[in-house]
C-alpha cells in the first residue's frame, strides 16, 4: 500500500479503540495533509482545538491522565516547537517525577513539510527529529520513512510496553512520492 493509505489504515485502527481521541487543528476541517488521513474517522472521536500548541500538549496529557489515549496532531514540526514546554518539561518528565506512577499514554503525530511542488520555506519545512531525540528521555521518536513502517509504529504506540509516549514523524513529500 502507499504511504497515505497506510496512514489511513493506521488511523482507522486507532479509532477502533474506545480510549482513543484525535485532537489538533484540522482534524475535523480541511487545511493540511494530516486531515486527509482522518476523513473516515467519525467526528465524535475528534476535538478540533484552537491554535494553542502548548496548551494542546498539556490538554492531551491531562486527557491521558484520566484514561484517554490522545492522538495529538501537529501538522508541521515547526508548530510542535511551540509545545516544547509541555512536552519536554512535563510529559517527558512525568514518569520520573511521579516515581513511575504516572505514565499517560500519548501519541504525537507531526510531519516534516514538503518542499515540492511548493516550498513552504524556513518556518514550514523544518526537520527537528535529531534535536527531539536529544531532548527527550521517555518519548519514543520514530521517523516514518517507508509505507511499511507506519502501521507497526502506530500499533506499538497504542500497545507497546516500553514507552508510554510516542512521537511519529511523517514526511509531507512521501504523501505524493511513496
Amino acid at each position, binding site marked *: 500500500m502507499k504511504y497515505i493509505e497506510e496512514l489511513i489504515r493506521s488511523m482507522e485502527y486507532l479509532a477502533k479503540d474506545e480510549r482513543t481521541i484525535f485532537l489538533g487543528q484540522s482534524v475535523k476541517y480541511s487545511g493540511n495533509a494530516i486531515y486527509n488521513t482522518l476523513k473516515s474517522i467519525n467526528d465524535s472521536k475528534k476535538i478540533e482545538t484552537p491554535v494553542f500548541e*502548548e*496548551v494542546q500538549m498539556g490538554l*492531551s*496529557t491531562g486527557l491521558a*491522565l484520566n484514561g*484517554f489515549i490522545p492522538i495529538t496532531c501537529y501538522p508541521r514540526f515547526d508548530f510542535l516547537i511551540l509545545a516544547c514546554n*509541555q512536552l519536554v518539561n*512535563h510529559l517527558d518528565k512525568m514518569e520520573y517525577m*511521579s516515581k513511575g506512577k*504516572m505514565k499517560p499514554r500519548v501519541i504525537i503525530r507531526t510531519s516534516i513539510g514538503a518542499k515540492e511542488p511548493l516550498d513552504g520555506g524556513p518556518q514550514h519545512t523544518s526537520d527537528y527529529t535529531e534535536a527531539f531525540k536529544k531532548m527527550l528521555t521517555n518519548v519514543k521518536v520514530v521517523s516514518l520513512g517507508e509505507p511499511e513502517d507506519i502501521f507497526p509504529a502506530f500499533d506499538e504506540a497504542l500497545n507497546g510496553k516500553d514507552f508510554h509516549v510516542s512521537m511519529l514523524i511523517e514526511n509531507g513529500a512521501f504523501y505524493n512520492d511513496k
Partner: protein
Amino acid sequence: MNKQELINFELKVKEAYEAGKIKAPVHLSGNNEDQLIEIFKKVNEDDWVFTGWRNHYHALLHGFDPEELFSLIVEGRSMSINSSERRFYSSSIVAGSIPLALGVAQSIKLKEESNKVWCFIGDMTFETGVFHECYKYSRNFNLPLEFVVEDNNMSTNTPTDETWNKKSKIPDDVHYYKYERNFPHHGTGSWVLF
C-alpha cells in the same frame, strides 16, 4: 489537618533542611493556613488537585499521609510532589500545571464523571497567556475546573505588580486570596552548608 498541624509540618521540614538532610530546594508554605483550610473544605477526595512548587499544604489537605510526604521531601522531591492515587500533581514550571488540569477537566466532562479539578496558581501565573487561554477554554466549554489564585505579589523575589505595571482583575468565578509569605521563596532564610 488543622492549622497548627500544618505549621508544625513545615517547621519539621525547616529543621531537617537546616540540618542539611534535604539536598534539594524546599518552598515552604506559611501564613495562608486559614485560607487553604477553608478552600479545601470544598475539595472532595476524588477531585484532582494541580499546584506548583509551594505544595506541601495542598498535599496535606488533599489527604497525603504526613510521613509519606515528609519522606518524599527528604528524598529531594518537594518540587514535584505527585500521586496518581491521590490525583495530585505539582509542577515547578510557571503555569505548567494549568494545561494538564484543563485536560483532566475535559476528560471528566467527556466521561460524564461528577468530580472536579482544582488548579492552584500564584499571582504571576495568573497574568500569563497560558492561564488566559486555559481559563477561556474551560469557561467556554463549561469544564469542571476551579482556579484558585494565591496572591503574595511575589514571583521568586520579583513583585508581580511592578513587572506588569498593574495587576489584572480577577474574574468572579476564580477563587482568590491574598497573603504575605513568611518564608523566603525557597529555603528557610538560613544559609545551609551541605
